[in-house]
């Protein structure tokens, strides 16, 4: 024994010198209990635990809910159960994981030294005695693990350099340059020895402008007016006119709604409707229509509740804007984990939409490609952590108080009736409950008969389960009641209902956020992203690599309603020195005009994202955006009045040869309309579109076979021939689990996460819907009736159809085949109309 003990000590000393002193020293920040030669196994075992385990299974972190600092806490164990069976190492989880018998072996990523393992084994077999609890404090060690430096090299990446207002380059073909956009585009083309395409046909141009800005085809008269107007300002005037149209916000607001994963329901199991979510949708449409400066638009969505405004209307508008933070999916069962998931949705959406950064990737570890430390994630989380759900009333405080009083009056009047009702029902309920108990399995009845103090653990559980969950259903109760009592009950119920009818109507509210005061609840660094592994307390922060210096979050005044963290964060986002915000939005505007962004990954400006095809142009646009007061409409004007935007989109062999993907913009991209716009165009051309704006969503018909379920998920679809549903698709109620087939097959995003660029598939199910659906069939009939109303002969009806749908007359060949077809039988004209809706030309922006 003596010699064995001696060997053990010698080995331990050796081990401590080599591993402890050299390899682990930088990481050991735990305070060891005094080590002394004379003491026993326990001290060595505790030393092994301190050195290898306590940083994650002690204070402050308790990974897997396991605390290894005392014998009691070890015996109690963690998520997997007790960690210790004293006297039996092979059955002790502590040993099994340390020895790699169970996976994952501990500590993660390294192997415990044989000697340490032997120590643990002997100690457990010896009874696992603690000389004293481990008084380890690993806060500093944990904090050190959380640090991850951002270097100067990291900051040199193009996206983190402030955009520069480059001087537009000089080009050989200066005559083509209508504004600086053209200079940048042409310089790139000339460097590839490519020429720009000629200006598009005026009919194509006017159609392009309408579909691009409004998402609706132009009326024939509007086309003709533009074609006839030979003045040099005709095009600029058209752009101005369209930017002033209320339909512009419906088109461009939709791009924004994709980005903020807007939906009218919560998703997951019950997918509950959010009956006031539409107010945010209307806010976005209004913001685009009124050309709300983007920096203000941004601030309102992140911190509208924390901002001050001169008028009540503006304040309410900004409260509605914070719905941005509420549009994520919401789990059915709420846990700390699901709260973290909700915050993750907010962080990923906010940083993706405004910064073009995938900060969400740094939830569980430092970002794999970009200089985004995990700590940045949790500092940004601390910005949003204090915000809580709020159904914000959109009326004055006085009206809220009046409403409360009125509701209380009804409650008070109902109280005596409700009491009487309960008294009437109670005896029946008790009797039925006793009958039910008598039918329970014998062993459960035995548990109920056993006096509470004599019940075993299992009997206690079962007795409590009976008490808490055995219920009498309403049906059963009513069936058991005497006729007289039933009549009395009906009478009471009707009185209660009569009073309910007098309740004041619910106040208009917005889906919003609020905080509970100036002092937020603490939030922490979560190691490996798990709420069970809380590390250091987090202060709010911004994206380190994109900030010049450590951004300062001012403390709120004592009486503040919130921490003002979001307001400060939004200020940083919208500050002129933020290298990302203006660039990311300028790129999005460009993307929706040209089909692809200058950076093709519009929400990822990081290392794994694309590089700008025209870096100087992007910089210039970003600088111009800020200079023009963050006006989105000014950017439309700038881009659309360039010659680059007005190029034809037709094929050109030399261009296809040199640059098949049109990265350098030798032509205008041909873009496919989104499903929403195909539907809107059909309604517009058929002459049935209801142009009413705003308000609660509409419910077009969806076959119940596609959605029926009893989880409370419903779709109160209106028949196709209900004109109420003939409104623009942006007003369709967006239900997360019940997609509208016509939009779904055309790649409408699933609204679960932010969508910066829609997929553009072509699949046969799209064709089936446009060929066969009752909606298209009905609208084809309306289109045919419109043609008959507006034109005489079949030939002129064909002319009119082409004018309405494509803004041009048919070619002679088209006219011949179309007229022949339309005249071929009683259904000719309707079928011809349906054909128009199905043509490539109908669904592509020229």
């Amino acid at each position: 024994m003596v010699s064995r003990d001696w060997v053990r000590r010698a080995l331990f000393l050796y081990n401590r010198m080599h591993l402890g002193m050299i390899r682990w020293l930088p990481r050991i920040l735990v305070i060891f209990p005094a080590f002394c030669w004379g003491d026993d196994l326990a001290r060595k075992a505790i030393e092994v635990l301190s050195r290898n385990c306590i940083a994650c299974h002690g204070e402050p972190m308790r990974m897997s809910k396991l605390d290894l600092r005392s014998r009691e806490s070890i015996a109690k164990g963690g998520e997997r159960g007790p960690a210790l069976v004293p006297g039996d190492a092979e059955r002790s989880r502590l040993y099994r994981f340390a020895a790699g018998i169970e996976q994952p072996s501990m500590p993660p990523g390294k192997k415990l030294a044989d000697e340490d393992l032997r120590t643990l084994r002997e100690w457990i077999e010896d009874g696992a005695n603690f000389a004293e609890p481990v008084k380890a404090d690993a806060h500093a060690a944990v904090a050190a693990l959380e640090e991850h430096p951002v270097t100067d090299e990291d900051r040199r990446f193009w996206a983190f350099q402030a955009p520069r207002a480059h001087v537009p380059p000089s080009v050989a073909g200066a005559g083509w340059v209508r504004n600086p956009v053209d200079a940048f585009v042409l310089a790139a083309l000339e460097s590839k020895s490519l020429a720009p395409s000629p200006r598009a046909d005026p009919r194509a141009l006017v159609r392009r402008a309408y579909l691009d800005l409004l998402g609706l085809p132009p009326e024939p008269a509007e086309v003709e007016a533009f074609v006839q107007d030979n003045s040099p300002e005709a095009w600029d005037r058209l752009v101005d006119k369209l930017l002033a149209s209320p339909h512009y916000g419906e088109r461009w607001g939709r791009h924004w709604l994709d980005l903020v994963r807007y939906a009218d329901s919560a998703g997951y199991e019950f997918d509950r409707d959010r009956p006031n979510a539409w107010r945010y949708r209307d806010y976005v449409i209004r913001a685009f229509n009124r050309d709300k400066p983007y920096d203000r638009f941004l601030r309102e969505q992140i911190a509208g509740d924390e901002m001050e405004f001169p008028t009540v209307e503006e304040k309410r508008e900004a409260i509605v804007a914070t719905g941005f933070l509420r549009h994520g999916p919401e789990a059915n069962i709420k846990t700390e984990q699901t709260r973290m998931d909700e915050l993750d949705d907010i962080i990923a959406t906010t940083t993706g939409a405004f910064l073009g950064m995938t900060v969400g990737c740094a939830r569980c570890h430092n970002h794999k490609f970009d200089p985004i430390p995990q700590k940045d994630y949790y500092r940004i989380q601390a910005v949003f952590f204090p915000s809580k759900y709020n159904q914000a009333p959109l009326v004055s405080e006085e009206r809220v108080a009046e409403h409360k009083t009125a509701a209380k009056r009804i409650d008070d009047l109902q109280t005596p009736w409700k009491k009487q009702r309960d008294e009437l029902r109670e005896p029946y309920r008790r009797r039925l409950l006793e009958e039910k108990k008598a039918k329970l399995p014998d062993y459960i009845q035995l548990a109920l008969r056993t006096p509470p103090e004599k019940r075993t653990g299992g009997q206690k559980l079962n007795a409590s389960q009976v008490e808490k969950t055995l219920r009498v259903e309403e049906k059963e109760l009513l069936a058991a009641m005497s006729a007289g009592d039933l009549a009395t009950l009906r009478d009471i119920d009707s009185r209660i209902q009569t009073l309910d009818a007098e309740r004041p109507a619910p106040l208009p509210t917005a889906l919003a956020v609020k905080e509970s005061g100036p002092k937020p609840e603490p939030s922490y660094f979560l190691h490996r992203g798990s709420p069970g592994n809380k590390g250091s307390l987090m202060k709010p922060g911004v994206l380190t690599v994109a900030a010049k210096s450590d951004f300062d979050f001012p403390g709120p005044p004592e009486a503040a309603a919130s921490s003002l963290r979001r307001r400060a964060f939004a200020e940083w986002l919208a500050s002129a020195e933020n290298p990302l915000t203006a660039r990311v939005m300028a790129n999005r505007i460009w993307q929706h005009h040209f089909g692809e962004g200058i950076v093709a990954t519009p929400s990822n400006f990081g290392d794994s994202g694309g590089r700008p095809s025209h870096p100087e142009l992007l910089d210039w646009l970003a600088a111009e955006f800020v200079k023009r007061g963050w006006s989105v409409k000014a950017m439309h004007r700038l881009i659309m009045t360039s010659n680059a935007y007005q190029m034809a989109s037709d094929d050109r062999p030399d261009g296809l040869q040199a640059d098949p993907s049109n990265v350098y913009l030798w032509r205008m991209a041909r873009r496919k309309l989104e499903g929403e716009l195909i539907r809107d165009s059909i309604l517009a051309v058929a002459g049935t579109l209801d142009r009413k704006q705003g308000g609660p969503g509409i419910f077009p018909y969806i076959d119940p076979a596609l959605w029926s379920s009893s989880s409370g998920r419903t779709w109160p679809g209106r028949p196709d021939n209900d004109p109420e549903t003939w409104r623009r698709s942006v007003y369709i109620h967006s239900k997360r689990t019940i997609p509208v087939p016509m939009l779904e097959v055309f790649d409408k995003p699933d609204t679960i996460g932010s969508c910066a660029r829609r997929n553009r598939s072509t699949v046969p199910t799209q064709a089936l819907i446009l060929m066969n659906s009752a909606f298209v069939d009905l609208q084809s009939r309306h289109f045919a009736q419109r043609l008959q109303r507006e034109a005489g002969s079949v030939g002129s009806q064909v002319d009119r159809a082409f004018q309405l749908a494509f803004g041009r007359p048919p070619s002679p060949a088209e006219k011949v085949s179309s007229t022949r077809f339309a005249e071929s039988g009683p259904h000719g004209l309707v079928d011809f109309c349906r054909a128009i809706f199905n043509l490539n030309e109908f669904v592509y922006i020229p």
Partner: protein
Amino acid sequence: MSQRLYSRRELLWRAGSGIAGVALADMLAASERPMRGPHFPPKATAVISIFCYGGVSHVDTFDPKPELTRRQGEALSGVGEVVVSQGHPGALMGSPWSFKKYGQCGMDVSEIFPHVGSMADDIALIRSMYAISNDHGPALFQMNTGSVLAGHPSMGSWIAYGLGTENRNLPGFIVFSDWRGGPIGGAPNWGNGYMPAAYQGTPFRSTGDPIVDMRPPKDVTPQRQRAWLDLVGKLNDEHLRRNPEDSELSARIASYELAYRMQSHAPEAVDIAKEPEATRRMYGLDDKVTEYFGGQCLMARRLVERGVRFVQVYSGGGNFDESWDAHYGLKYNHELHARETDKPIAALLKDLKQRGLFDSTLVVWHGEFGRMPISQRMVGRDHNPLGFTIWLAGGGIKGGTIVGATDEFGYRAVENRKSVNDLHATILALLGLDHEKLTYRHNGREMRLTDVSGKVIQEIVA
């Protein structure tokens, strides 16, 4: 005209014959090309997933626990904190059913699955599955997409993306819901997530027309539709002439011919009326209880036979007793759903065998989690993601195998634990796809069905 790469007819011809590597899925997905699979020789070419939604109780079906009966009424202790989804956990509750040994392998199967039991030698059981969430929505998403969070492409999408389609006249990924309705979470369960719509699951209805808007409007005759389609073609040609090299425009034209063919192919594919009487009886089509699910199993076989890659059939829809979600009365619930599915599932396996499709079709039977060994509301069981059983049969599967084990009560998987990622990796591997190589680039990252983990379960591979 001379500049045009493909004429419309050329294109259709190429698409139709599938020569020169022009897979139609390529054209239809336009710019996003599918993966070129498989990575290695496949053992199966199609998958039928039988999703017993709501959560099947493993201790009452394929994982007998005599200890549970012996210690009925005792508290479940020594396992750490017991987390239930609906509160008020009870004590241990034995299974109301007995188990019998089946096949040469001697597999224990509950008396509620006698027909499936008779196929034991073809089945590989995994008794040590575990999942993350004890909530239906996230758990369904995990089983279908690998992630508890919504928004990721489902396994069927990954497979359609990885392997393309074998039948250009039918969707590559088809889903049948239960007659009581769809599962919780709805369409994202077969969603394409961030992938193009080409890979999304197409819900097939089991009665009437299988696909929405499959049939032309009532008064449109086939002749009228053909003439109509020719007009569309003619007018599209004019437009295409100006942009002869735009493959997107050509693909869209091709999609109409495809849709036209689908109109006749899809109804034919699920037309089970003409199946021989013996087959219909085998699937239980002569019995009200098994008629609906049996019909879906038979349709699944017909679809796989016609080259569909992934067919998912749900048993259970809606909530609680409409699905396997036996919170209230285990006995009523599981007997109902087992009766509806037992005979049809066994028939499907037998039918695949007799038609020589068994070796190329992988059948996976699973729920989204298992159920607790303790009681809920006295006679029900709550959700349990910590341990549950699934089984696989068919292409590449070593029948009669049993992998892993739960603890003595069936509370937690303890031996040879298998994650959902492991299951997905295995299914892909059987189809010849390496789950680490099957990636799709999204927002700058190479995404995977198995995220960053998953190990092929070699023990069940023949």
